[in-house]
């Protein structure tokens, strides 16, 4: 696949992520902070997000398996996940976290379980999509091209 084709593919892919609400303006902000001094900035921040999210999702799963559910602690963890998804522009995950927090506050186990499933699902999607996007970017760089803005 030639360079121009790859670059077009990337632009289309990125645009679709915004159109479909997977990413929001904050992701653009992240990209604008990347420069020659810090060419891997976006990948680094997103990797931190992946690590942090997976840790939180595991803890939330465990929390909901307990005999006595610590809703307050869960709420704090969902708050963290909401914050970090907001910071990188992972729009759908962020929106789900808001709903999740409402269920925590209402101490609604069913609601929490359902939300957790949905958040895990959306997280999985955005992770795959961002990884695909980074792969495309790497292909472009390997082909000697530059990432279109």
């Amino acid at each position, binding site marked *: 696949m030639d360079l121009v084709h790859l670059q077009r593919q990337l632009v289309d892919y990125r645009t679709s992520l915004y159109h479909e609400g997977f990413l929001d303006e*904050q992701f653009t*902000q*992240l990209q*604008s*902070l990347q420069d020659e001094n*810090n060419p891997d*900035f976006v990948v*680094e*921040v997103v990797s*931190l*997000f992946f690590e*942090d999210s997976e840790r939180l999702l595991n803890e939330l799963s465990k929390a909901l398996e307990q005999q006595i559910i610590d809703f307050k602690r869960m709420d*704090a963890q969902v*708050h*963290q996940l*909401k*914050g*970090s998804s*907001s*910071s*990188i522009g992972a729009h759908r995950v962020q929106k789900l976290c808001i709903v999740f927090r409402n269920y925590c506050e209402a101490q609604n186990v069913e609601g929490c379980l359902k939300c957790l499933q949905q958040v895990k699902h959306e997280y999985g999607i955005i992770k795959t999509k961002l990884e695909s996007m980074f792969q495309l970017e790497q292909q472009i760089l390997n082909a000697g091209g530059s990432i279109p803005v």
Partner: protein
Amino acid sequence: MELMNSENIVQDRQPAQPQEEEEIMQQEEEEEEQRFHVLAVDDSVIDRKLLEKLLKASSYQVTCVESGEKALEYLGLLHHSSPASSSSQHHHQGHKVNLIMTDFSMPGTSGYDLLKRIKGSSWKDVPVVVMSSENVPSRISMCLEGGAEEFMLKPLQLSDLHKIQAHLLKSLPHS
């Protein structure tokens, strides 16, 4: 950038004299001292990385800590007794602190707790900016009344840093 000519190239080949190296280091240290130094406090590793980048992109020197406790420790306020020497005022190990930016919701010592501790100490003249992902009017007024210079909504953007610059300039001593 100096144009390279054959004379310069020959000079560059020579190792710098120890005195010159020292001078260069001194100059770099001085330049660093002239930049504003921001202490950034946030329990989120992602937000710390973001904030650090935003601040560095605006040419500030940054120190990031992960908790209110670590911030108090950095400022020498962890133990209840006030710092012994007056030379520690606005300085930590010789480095000044021009601005403190702290997240509001942190486990343990919250951003608000940190704000109150700072305002009740010898660091009280250092501007404190509180950040939060939640837009809660009562929280905002509480922080402003508690002495915060500004309350900012996360996620922060480069344009938000312009507001901060005004506060930093205000805090400069009379020259």
